[in-house]
């Protein structure tokens, strides 16, 4: 169900959904790993539609890694330059899920806790 592996890597983490496009610059604090909605994204399988806003966002993603609060992986519906650059530089697995994005979000939201598992090289995400 992965449409494209942009940055490959292993991930086994609790899923967290953010329902809107994220501007990492201004909406995520790299020192605390928290969003403005007070959601902690460190070590999580972060599911969100994509990014927007300032290109400084790339540095913020890198900053999350620097301060040890980077997500375990990022699963997005759309990937644009700010996000791709940040993910590669910070070595955070980044997966594009287009066809089954809605189902994935729905599935994760319906469960109290969901674990996302991805193995290097595989084009599927296992949702537990």
């Amino acid at each position, binding site marked *: 169900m992965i449409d*494209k*592996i*942009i*940055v*490959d*890597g292993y991930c086994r983490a609790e899923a967290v959904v953010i329902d809107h496009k994220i501007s990492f*610059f201004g909406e995520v604090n*790299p*020192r605390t790993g928290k969003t403005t909605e007070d959601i902690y994204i460190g070590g999580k399988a972060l599911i969100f539609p994509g990014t927007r806003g*300032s*290109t*400084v966002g*790339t*540095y*913020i993603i*890198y*900053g*999350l890694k*620097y*301060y040890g609060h980077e997500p375990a992986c990022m699963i997005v519906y759309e*990937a*644009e*330059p*700010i996000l*791709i*650059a*940040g993910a*590669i*530089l910070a070595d955070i697995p980044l997966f594009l899920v287009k066809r089954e994005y809605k189902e994935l979000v729905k599935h994760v939201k319906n469960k109290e806790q969901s674990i996302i598992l991805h193995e*290097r*090289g*595989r*084009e599927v995400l296992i949702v537990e």
Partner: protein
Amino acid sequence: MDQVQDGEAQLMYLTREQERILSGEEGWVKAKALRVIVKVGEALGADELVKIRHAHVSGISYTNIGEPGLKFLEELAENGAEATVYTTSNPTCIDLAGESSLIDQGYLDQQLLVNKALEKMKIKPTYTCLPYMLRPPSPHEHLTWGESNAVAMANSFYGARTNREGGPIALLASITGYIYNAGLHKLEERCVKTLIKYEDKLDDLTASLLGLWIGENIDEIPMIELSTIPRIQDVKLLLASAAATGSHALIVIKGLTPLKTYIEDINDKITIRRKDLIRTYKDNIWSGKNYSLAYIGCPHLSATETLRIIKLLEKKYDRTMGKIILSIPPLVSSLFRKELEALRNKNIEVITGTCPVVARFKYRPDIIVTNSGKAFFYLRKLHRLDVRLASLNSIIG
């Protein structure tokens, strides 16, 4: 550093030289930088990379990039990353002359660390938003520039090819020497769709207004037809303003933009008059007698403009109207040291290598007057200041 990780499909055609870099033969930093360029290029649908001649790195103000940005730049520099093409740097968040009454120098130490990392990577300490003043690009030449006003000048005035890139991509392109062949790098993407006729007098104020209006109202690539040949300083204000309120990176100016650097497929024609612009922005146009601050030099004043303004200010300037701030590149500051020193004694402040838009202020001026639509847009948006537009002539008195 492995070149392409297990599950990542490679879609782009790469030359042997690029494959070699990607496989880490020139070090892992360069390999990683190229991997970013390739991956972003693939996401944008590029089929190959093109060699660039000049990179301009924006996003270097500590106020914006903070500690994560500084750490990123320092790590690159420590691991041997270096510019492989001519690379210039955008303004910083501090006045490099250190004499400003407006610009807060609180981040001086941190900004100097940013500068040190950049200079270690052999990026020229130009600290200006006018990279084209230092190395004017040639038509068709591929560049990777951050800084929207410079991008618009490169494409529209010089006929060179660059997208509006962010600071990190511009830096990584500088390290690798390559950028993806997508967007404005391709002639077929440089296609004019809308013709805008403007038949009245164009001065600095109307150039800014026209730019603001285009940015707010036109989405596709426009061509402007003017009745007279515009002055370069007015073109600069027009493009900077349009690039601020819109996402424009190319605005063809008929008779000025080099031929064959764009194609035409015009399906919409609009005529706009000076009186329409004045009416649209009437509440934003300054009509008072005094101001607490007038800001000239957004984008930075070139050497020629600085000289012209020095002459103008020496001849006529009514200091009772208010304080004037001139914003210039370090190079220009060193060219006219004596003349600028004389101005400083006349209620005129000269700031060097900085940009009020990305800096913090020591105080909040009541009303800032400027001839720049770009400064008008960003100082209102980011600093929430009361900003009014006026021509240079009316500011000087």
